[in-house]
């Protein structure tokens, strides 16, 4: 692991935690267990796109609207993370990662350590290439959803109340 990666990782960990996001690290083979102990059932998810990294049993990976509605937890992959902001990038896809990550009270995001970039400049270079090429959509998510519209800051407005990140290393 290069120095830069180590720095980015540490900075990312510190930043996400400052938003009240829990962060766990797991080797590829241990990811399923880490997810299993993070989730509140019932859980929905979309398949993780990396070889040797699996979702645990009990996560519905082909959810219906009813499943999404009833789920307490949504599990999805994050494509990228921005170290100095503690942000994760959630890419939309045909499998429904966007609604899966949005409706439950808890969102568990799985992220590969090598996908952590140091800053927004690097992130937007990546977006530039990706979005021009694929015309995909994505969300840069930082911490849980929040609102201050009801008189004081409340976490969990329309989106998740809690976010957990599992870093695969």
């Amino acid at each position: 692991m290069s120095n830069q990666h180590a720095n980015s990782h540490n900075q990312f960990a510190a930043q996400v935690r400052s938003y009240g996001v829990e962060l766990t690290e797991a080797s590829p083979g241990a990811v399923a267990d880490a997810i299993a102990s993070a989730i509140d059932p019932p859980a929905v998810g979309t398949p993780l796109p990396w070889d040797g990294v699996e979702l645990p049993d009990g996560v519905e990976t082909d959810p219906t609207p009813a499943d999404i509605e009833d789920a307490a937890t949504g599990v999805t992959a994050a494509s990228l993370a921005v170290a100095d902001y503690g942000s994760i990038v959630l890419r939309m896809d045909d499998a429904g990662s966007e609604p899966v990550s949005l409706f439950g009270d808890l969102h568990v995001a799985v992220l590969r350590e090598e996908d952590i970039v140091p800053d927004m400049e690097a992130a937007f270079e990546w977006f530039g290439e990706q979005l021009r090429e694929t015309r995909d959509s994505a969300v840069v998510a930082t911490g849980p959803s929040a609102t201050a519209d009801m008189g004081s800051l409340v976490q969990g407005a329309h989106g998740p109340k809690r976010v957990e990140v599992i870093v695969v290393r």
Partner: protein
Amino acid sequence: MSSERDSKAAHIRHIMETEGDAVGANTRGFNDGRYESVGELEDYDALKDEARSIKEDAIERLPHLVDELTETVEENGGTVYLAEDAADANEYIAEVCTDNEADRLVKSKSMTSEEIEINEHLEREGVEVVETDLGEWVLQVADEAPSHIVAPAIHKSREGIADLFNEQFDPEEDLETAEELTAFAREQLGELIRGADVGMTGANFITADSGTMALVTSEGNARKTVAVPETQIAVAGVEKVVPSVEDLQPFVELIGRSGTGQDITSYISLLTPPVNSPTVDFDDPDTPVADGDDDREFHLVLIDNGRMAMREDEELRETLYCIRCSACSNTCANFQSVGGHAFGGETYSGGIATGWEAGVHGMDAAAEFNDLCTGCSRCVEACPVGIDIPWINTVVRDRLNTGTDPELEFLVDGLTPDTETSGPGIQKRLFGNFELLAKVGSTVAPVSNWVANAGPVSRVLQRAAGVAHDRDLPAFQRTTFREWFEGRDRVPPIDPDRRVVLYPDLYTNYILVNRGKAAVRALEALGVEVLVPPVPGSGRAPLSQGMIDTARSKAERVAEALGPYVADGYDVVVIEPSDLAMFRGDYERLLPEESFESLAEHSYEILEYVYGLLTNGADTDGLTLADGDGETVAYHAHCQQRTMGLDEYSVAVLDACGYDVTTSDVECCGMAGSFGYKEQYYELAMDVGSTLEEQLRDADCDHVIASGTSCTDQIGDLLGEEPSHVIELLAPDGETT
């Protein structure tokens, strides 16, 4: 006229009483957050410059970028509709709803959609419209207008929202906490989103290269609005187009920090619609979402509504760079007291609203509230794209100045030899022509002071020109500063270290004469040769009333008078910060480049100059030093002085002379030139000043000092005793008559 001023005063008073506390607490919180959050950025200024140049370039190439974007979106499978005006946009959107047999449209927050009043239009067409942003929803339920462009319901307290919900929805158990209110709203709105046929969003930025729109949000409602229904409509002003995805980066880093003081908001959606996410069809709850046969539809409605004309308008064009972050509202002292319901037009609020309203709704819409910008300039450094917001206000004021008080004009005609071709109102002309007023006032002082502040005359001034009866007018001095200077017996230093022209600004010359004398003594004590030649007023007073022609002719005469001294190697030293701000800033728009640059380059604020002398080896021995045991000073720097970054010199020199300094941290004293003298704004000015008063009283120091004339007047009224200028504290003692 007088009754118009009365009703304006009553309106402002009412808003301050009912909404002032909530607005004040929220905007000050945002503003403090901004200072903290941008302070953490290593390259804040570089990011701002980058953001500014991206916008300059995008607006320059706008027609081309709109074409490119249209092509891209169509390639992506969406539709672009370029709407000429609000009616055109509304019709198109209603058609899309009809084609989709839509009964309900859910919306995320969008000011542009408020500008075209789409909700009202669709409701008339039988489409139910639901605002899903919690703040917007509160307002929809309450049937109120936004009071802030980013946080629309900041004028409402938690208790107020709870009362509203309990009354409207009669829940089983009364709602009370912010958590309960949020959970209740989430549930209600969740239900409404589930059954929606169309989702409508705004767009903070749209990239021409990929057709990606950036949405800056925190609640997650915009994500649901896009993810759930099959049809998406995005409404955006044409000015939102930027060339490429990479261009989004500086804005993403700046917008949250500048606005609500968040480093970044919870969600930055980068949508390239029609999005490749399956719809969530709650009418078919048991078919896996990934198996649905989606046919997503996307309509981008780009709104002109006056923007292309703004682009052609040299003075209003800068408005189009605005990214609607709200920093200029939050940092504005007047806005902090009243919010957008008083400081706002049909759609937009805060300082930049003048540009938006004039451009999209017309001059009348801007006229209503444009006076509330006092030109303090604190917003300029807060604006992430560096818009000269006070200048836009000045220009609009100038255009609005069409004679409205014919029958009263003769009263001040003799006192108002301005060069305005159209007629500003009598109040504006009285304050705009302060120079002649001061000359006449001084000739007949102290009688003029006594007369002006005596009951009958004071009331006439109030009735005819709207001068607040509760204010004492500035007291003109019988012997002007220049007369004193000319009459002194003194031998000029044979071999001076530096040579200075001390600018006899109107206030120093006619009213605050002692600070001029102090400046001369201090400079001479530091080995400087000082001249005080006759130089006319800077034009600040007419400019602040929107009398640009008059200001320009003053500027030309100042440049004529000072130019030869500058050419001869003299430095120009200025006591009044608002005049230095003219020399260094506004003159750029009033003078030829060369005369502006040489004057700007050689002008210094008095304490900035003293600081320079001290760092170049001059000795503080000649100045009045603090006595040994921690003499304390409460210091309020002038708003424009702070924007120029010059307040720190005063603090540094005071420090070097042994004083223990406490500085105020309010954005503006509230007086802001003649603003606080105007009858209709007097109470607002005093409300703004109350924060400063509290800070100065709490500091409980041996001396209270200020830099600007307005601040001196205002603090005098607030504390019952006029503060002195920094230089008066530091200058060696001397004759005071």
